């Protein structure tokens, strides 16, 4: 193939780099090994010296004693009664809470459940639960739609109903998981963070409920419009017409003031870093939603489209979720965040760099070249907040790796943080003109968006939910089910994204080589099948998640009916 990808220069550079890296690794290993051996030798020599000194200093009787003791030791045999007694065990101090002689899961290790009981006002618990249950419903619905759409790539004649056609249903999927699932879950989880870190109660429960219903109404109304063929013009993530989107902006406004008033009445001096991200996320999203709906025509609309669709992800989902990590991750590990200052640095650079990069969705388009260049430059700059955030989270986890394997919450955090680094960096690299040439317009984009919106946002939200809900409802989910949720979602995501990345690259190469377009469609079929398989696994994991939420919620409902 005479493709630039395989041009001798690039291949050589890659090979050389690998050789250098390999050599460096080998050298490093050898050096470390040598040093360790030296240390070992020194210790051995010291031990030998000490031992011979001891021998020389011994009296002959002492030597006899030592040898006799050694003889006895060598002839010792177990009687078989060492580990038990005839006495019955009695728990005099009430230390044992659960006795199990027959572990119910021989294949899986038991995870820790000894969490501290969280005391929250019941009104707050109800509010948070409402948000989380709503979010779970939309997750299941939204990904059911997504799964159905994924199958349509392979079976285009799955149905021929106008309301279920691909073009109308695609924005139903994206908007539902954006506003219904992620946004509701984020806001719900933030209610806990804001009150907890302000050491106070929430300013208004009523406002909380109003925002909750506004968002739900918006998703229902918006989806019905979309399926009926009424959309705002097809611009991604602002397909809801403005009267519908207005409900969301109102909900944001209400939520912002609710949080702001709570934080203003905080009983501690400092504003915890989480609240920076949460307040800013709400503020910035209101601004960008208004700008996104400004009535520009011509390519002016395209400029705001690039700005809006990228900021929707960057200033809303990412910013807000980062705020959640800054609270839930350290609290799950029961230790402070590694560096507060790094969090502050990431905050300001997030605002500065992320805002500028929307046009990287329109590289090589008729938009002004300078706008594209600014977007690309700042995309590269995104490396700073991403590295700052990732470092901060990983350093917080450092030293607690044992805790990760013995917890069902922390693996979700770990995957989320890893995807935060991988997905964001990959996105930055994708904006470069060179890679954009290959990947833009292909299924690679779809892989990227799922790596980020799912790999980062959803995994972090699940981590936070599993971290907080059992503490609120005083009921643990079944660990096997949480494990099933985790692995189905994780493996499903990989089965979804990796084939799409490979297929997307092949598609881009086929276009660059100038092959007939239809070949780029047929070559995708196997990769689309893989996407459908991965998508099915992801959807199944959401059913499991919904079941977990249900089991964790049962006691609350009981308590309520008893009260009545």
């Amino acid at each position, binding site marked *: 193939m005479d493709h630039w990808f395989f041009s001798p220069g690039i291949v050589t550079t890659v090979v050389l780099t690998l050789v250098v890296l390999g050599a460096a690794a080998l050298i490093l290993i050898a050096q470390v090994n040598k040093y360790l051996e030296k240390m070992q030798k020194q210790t051995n020599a010291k031990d030998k010296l000490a031992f011979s000194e001891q021998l020389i200093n011994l009296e002959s009787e002492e030597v006899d004693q030592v040898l006799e003791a050694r003889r006895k030791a060598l002839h010792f045999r177990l009687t078989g009664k060492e580990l038990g007694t005839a006495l019955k065990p009695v728990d005099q101090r009430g230390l044992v809470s659960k006795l199990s002689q027959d572990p119910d899961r021989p294949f899986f290790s038991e995870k820790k459940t000894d969490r501290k009981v969280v005391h929250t006002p019941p009104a707050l618990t109800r509010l948070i639960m409402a948000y989380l249950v709503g979010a779970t419903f939309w997750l299941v619905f939204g990904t059911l739609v997504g799964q159905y759409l994924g199958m349509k790539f392979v079976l285009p004649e799955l149905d021929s109903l106008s309301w279920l056609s691909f073009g109308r249903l695609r924005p139903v999927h994206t908007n539902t998981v954006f506003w219904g699932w992620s946004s509701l879950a984020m806001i719900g989880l933030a209610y806990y963070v804001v009150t907890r870190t302000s050491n106070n109660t929430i300013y208004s429960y009523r406002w909380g409920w109003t925002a909750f219903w506004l968002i739900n109404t918006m998703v229902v109304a918006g989806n019905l419009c979309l399926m009926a063929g009424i959309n705002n013009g097809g611009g991604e993530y602002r397909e809801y017409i403005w009267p519908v989107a207005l409900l969301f902006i109102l909900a944001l406004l209400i939520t912002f003031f609710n949080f702001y008033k709570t934080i203003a009445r905080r009983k501690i001096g400092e504003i915890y870093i989480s609240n920076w991200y949460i307040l800013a996320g709400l503020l910035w999203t209101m601004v960008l939603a208004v700008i996104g709906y400004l009535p520009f025509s011509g390519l002016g609309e395209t400029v*705001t489209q690039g700005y809006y669709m990228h900021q929707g992800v960057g200033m809303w989902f990412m910013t807000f979720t980062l705020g959640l990590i800054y609270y839930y991750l350290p609290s799950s590990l029961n230790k402070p965040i590694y560096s507060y200052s790094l969090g502050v640095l990431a905050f300001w650079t997030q605002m500065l760099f992320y805002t500028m990069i929307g046009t990287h969705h329109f590289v*090589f388009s008729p938009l002004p070249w300078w706008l594209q260049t600014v977007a690309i430059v700042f995309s590269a700059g995104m490396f700073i907040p991403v590295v700052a955030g990732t470092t901060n989270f990983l350093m917080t986890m450092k030293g607690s790796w044992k805790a990760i394997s013995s917890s069902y919450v922390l693996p979700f955090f770990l995957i989320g943080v890893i995807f935060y680094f991988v997905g964001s960096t990959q996105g930055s690299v994708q904006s470069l003109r060179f890679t954009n040439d290959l990947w833009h317009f292909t299924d690679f984009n779809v892989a990227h968006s799922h790596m980020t919106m799912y790999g980062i946002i959803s995994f972090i939200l699940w981590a936070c939910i599993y971290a907080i809900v059992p503490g609120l409802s005083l009921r643990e989910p079944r660990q096997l089910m949480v494990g099933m949720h985790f692995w189905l979602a994780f493996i499903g995501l990989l089965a979804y994204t990796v084939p799409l990345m490979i297929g997307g690259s092949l598609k881009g190469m086929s276009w660059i080589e100038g092959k007939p377009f239809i070949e780029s469609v047929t070559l995708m079929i196997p990769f689309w099948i893989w996407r459908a398989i991965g998508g099915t696994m992801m959807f199944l994991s959401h059913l499991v998640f919904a079941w977990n939420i249900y089991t964790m919620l049962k006691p609350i409902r009981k308590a309520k009916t008893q009260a009545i």
Partner: protein
Amino acid sequence: MNFHKNHRRLVLVSFFVFLLLSTGIAVLPAFQMQEQNAPLPGQPELSDLELNGLRVYIAEGCVACHTQQVRSIEMDKTWGSRPSIPSDYYYSKKRMDFWRQSPSILGSERTGPDLTNIGARQPSEEWHYLHLYNPRLVVEESVMPSYPWLFEEKEDPAATDVVLNLPGDTSSGTGKTKIVAGDQAIALVAYLKSLKQEPLPESISPGFIPSRKKTGGTDGEVPAGLPDGAALYTQTCAACHQAQGQGLPGAFPALAGSPIVNDSDPETLIRIILQGYDARPEFAAMPPFASQLSDEEVAAIATHERSSWGNDAAPVTAEEVQKIRETIEQTIQ
């Protein structure tokens, strides 16, 4: 400035800095793009019917899979003769109505072909109707949805109705009814046919950025062999005449076994490719390809057609095509 303790300051600073950045990166450039925009001289305005078609295009979410932007990179040459410029969108990207904004037709995914120039590439109405009714009737491998709700079933269509000639017995229902294009389908096809790139003088037209090295230095010299006729056929002709040259009965004639294709004198075949053809009422009209294909490409396609699917005729050279092209141009003048 202590942001750690002063919530008001924290909120105000992050709000206003973000607003400032957003104004600089989005609002002002958007305003500028909107103001500094004019149609090209001679660029046709969209008719009411075509505008309605654009609305159908947006309502059905066609933008989810089809782009309308020829980017300034070499691979996009397939989709237009020049990169798209802001003026191209002057008439189409206007606010639709009070409820809905200017349509986002540039798109972000190319699951289906770019449509910037579809009106020129595929001017056949019959093809578009069949394709919308069921894409797999004309493109077997297509994964595009069918749009049967844009069509109606009628027992005895009026003379003004657009009746679809469905190949074989694919019409649903009793078999007696005919499939007739509905108002939305008519509008949509009118819109698709209106999508043509307005030519720009070469001197001011932005060029394409080459995306890869040319191989072996064949560029510029007279190539020894012709371009890949099979690939060109797939790209340009197969949508109507089908992959195996079998055509679609009642819509597009077969090339396999066709006397014109197999004629020892290829002149008629070359003329049809260059000038188009509309002499047989039972088939749809074929558009001319003189402006889209070079002499070498026409020769390659003709040679491919004359040597495939059981056809067996002598190859065509670029010189023959050039000669016929010159005669056609002379007779027009």
